[in-house]
């Protein structure tokens, strides 16, 4: 599918619009019955040179600015990162089924984070992303090595099977450590199911630098990924070192995934649903795929969190349940298609 510049601009504009709409809906919806009028006026009030009386009490303003907003921003960051990492993994491994969740990255990161929570309570929240990164990197390394040994690098399904095995192992180890320290059980479970709970802007500020830096590196490689999609030999003839690029992008995507997993828990299937939906719209070129996955991923998770917050209100539904409910059937579709092609 070849996109003309006009069509490309239109698609990007639509994606941005979708994100803006998702964010606005999300701001207006929640278990606390803030009136849309009050919310909008209060937001206008924050603009420079605008003074309007929103009618919100200080408590309602705290709900809006210290609880709802940070949560939406965190959701957008997590969704953007997971979708972009998924697209990057799919490009790097030339495997349409690659996804942080299915490659074992999320589970490995989960194991790392669990160990940090269980053993390093003193380390605090900042230590968790680092532990998650180490776990995630080890897991993706194990998946790739295993998949390669067994089925050769081009066998898509074998890599995913290896990822499933690695994920199962990481989950078992995680369960073991949780049983060993079952006073932290509920905390870890709650985190595992995925939850965009924030304490003000703290989590957003911790995650933001990771997401910005890793997203910049990945998007900067969009043309390189297009060349590599043709084949390693062709890429090498154009002066690209495929092995080096592959290593760099896997490390970067894993780092970004680990940071958002540490903040939001194990939120699955975003990395597979979003890039594939984008491909259906604009084709396989990474120049458009990567930035669009970023935007659409943010919008997708913001919408999923609206469902998580409202479906069972006032109780919360773990967001990982929402994304899996949408994502698992979609994954089966992708699996069918990819088997049909190869």
């Amino acid at each position: 599918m070849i996109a003309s510049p006009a069509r490309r601009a239109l698609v990007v504009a639509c994606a941005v619009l979708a994100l803006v709409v998702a964010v606005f809906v999300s701001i207006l919806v929640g278990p606390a019955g803030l009136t849309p009028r009050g919310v909008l006026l209060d937001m206008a009030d924050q603009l420079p040179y605008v003074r309007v009386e929103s009618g919100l009490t200080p408590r309602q303003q705290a709900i809006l600015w210290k609880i709802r907003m940070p949560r939406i921003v965190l959701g957008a960051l997590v969704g953007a990162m997971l979708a972009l990492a998924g697209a990057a993994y799919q490009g790097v491994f030339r495997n349409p089924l690659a996804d942080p969740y299915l490659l074992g990255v999320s589970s490995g990161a989960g194991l790392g984070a669990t160990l940090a929570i269980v053993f390093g309570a003193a380390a605090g929240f900042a230590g968790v992303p680092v532990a998650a990164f180490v776990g995630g990197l080890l897991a993706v390394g194990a998946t790739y090595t295993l998949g390669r040994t067994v089925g050769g690098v081009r066998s898509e399904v074998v890599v995913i099977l290896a990822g499933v095995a690695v994920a199962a192992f990481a989950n078992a180890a995680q369960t073991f450590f949780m049983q060993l320290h079952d006073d932290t059980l509920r905390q870890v479970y709650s985190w595992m199911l995925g939850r965009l709970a924030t304490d003000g802007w703290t989590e957003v500020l911790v995650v933001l630098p990771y997401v910005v830096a890793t997203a910049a590196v990945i998007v900067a490689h969009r043309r390189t990924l297009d060349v590599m999609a043709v084949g390693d030999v062709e890429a090498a003839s154009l002066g690209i070192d495929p092995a080096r690029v592959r290593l760099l992008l896997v490390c970067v995507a894993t780092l970004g995934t680990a940071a958002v997993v540490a903040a939001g828990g194990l939120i699955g299937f975003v990395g597979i649903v979003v890039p594939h939906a984008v491909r259906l719209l604009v084709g396989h070129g990474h120049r458009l795929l990567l930035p669009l996955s970023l935007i659409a991923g943010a919008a997708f998770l913001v919408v999923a969190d609206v469902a998580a917050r409202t479906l069972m209100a006032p109780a919360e539904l773990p967001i990982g349940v929402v994304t899996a409910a949408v994502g698992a059937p979609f994954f089966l579709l992708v699996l069918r298609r990819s088997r049909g092609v190869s």
Partner: protein
Amino acid sequence: MPLTVRGRTAGRRGAARRPIAAATGALLLLIAACGSDPAPSGADNDAAGQPGAIVSLSPTATEMLFAIGAGDQVVAVDDRSDYPEQAPVTDLSGYTPNVEAVLGYDPDLVVTNADTGDLVAGLRRAGVETLILPAARTLDDTYAQLEQLGAATGHLAEAAALVAAVRTEIDTIVADLPDRDAPLRYYHELDNTYYTVTDDTYLGEIYAMLGLRSIATGGDGYPQLSAEFVLDQNPDVIFLADGQCCGVTPEAVAARAGWGELAAVREGRVFTLDEDIASRWGPRVVDLVREVARLVNPVPAVRPTS
């Protein structure tokens, strides 16, 4: 989903934080069992039909057994049973019980709160009776379980006396409550991910008796709330039952983003409860009732405007 159920169970039972003490206890008990105590022969009960050797796998059951005077018959309790102090703590797990490990103490009666992992069938095959005392839904369940345990251990009279005493004290506390036009609204925090209780739970019933209403509904009695909902509801009082598990203090609550706007925080009505007492349904429930009444009785009868 099993995950949720487990999470919830984890919150109800208090967590023993004394692994070393537990291990030492187990060792001492083992030595005692091997050495000097031939009396409770496992296979049969004594003349009065009382079980000579009881194993408790539930912290609540342990408290009940000792409160009704059956403590002398208890040979082993699980690693979470941290009250009373003389309870023979072992490393037995009530959470993932192992039939062989339980049988190692040669019990006549095993008391537990759930038939986890076919425990009952396994014990029956070895000829050991099991009494299951599940988490109570109402105070009457607590009374019934005390009497049930009294009947099973040969301490029925003491159990009946204890129930009567607890009833009387609770009635007195309730009778002494100040009059209020509207019930106070509370948020009882089970852990730092905002799991809480509704009126339709054991704790909720006790709070209701003391003139308090939960801000939460649904969620099968134990919903997980969002911070947004708690702020929107603006409870009059906050009870923290997560000081031990999660290190939450009234100061930590006040420091949460946005929570400083809550009336309960501004008026200093964030209270820490002993989460062991607040998560069990044993005889110490009377301590909980007394403590909650002590905390909320001074709160002005007229609700402040929010």
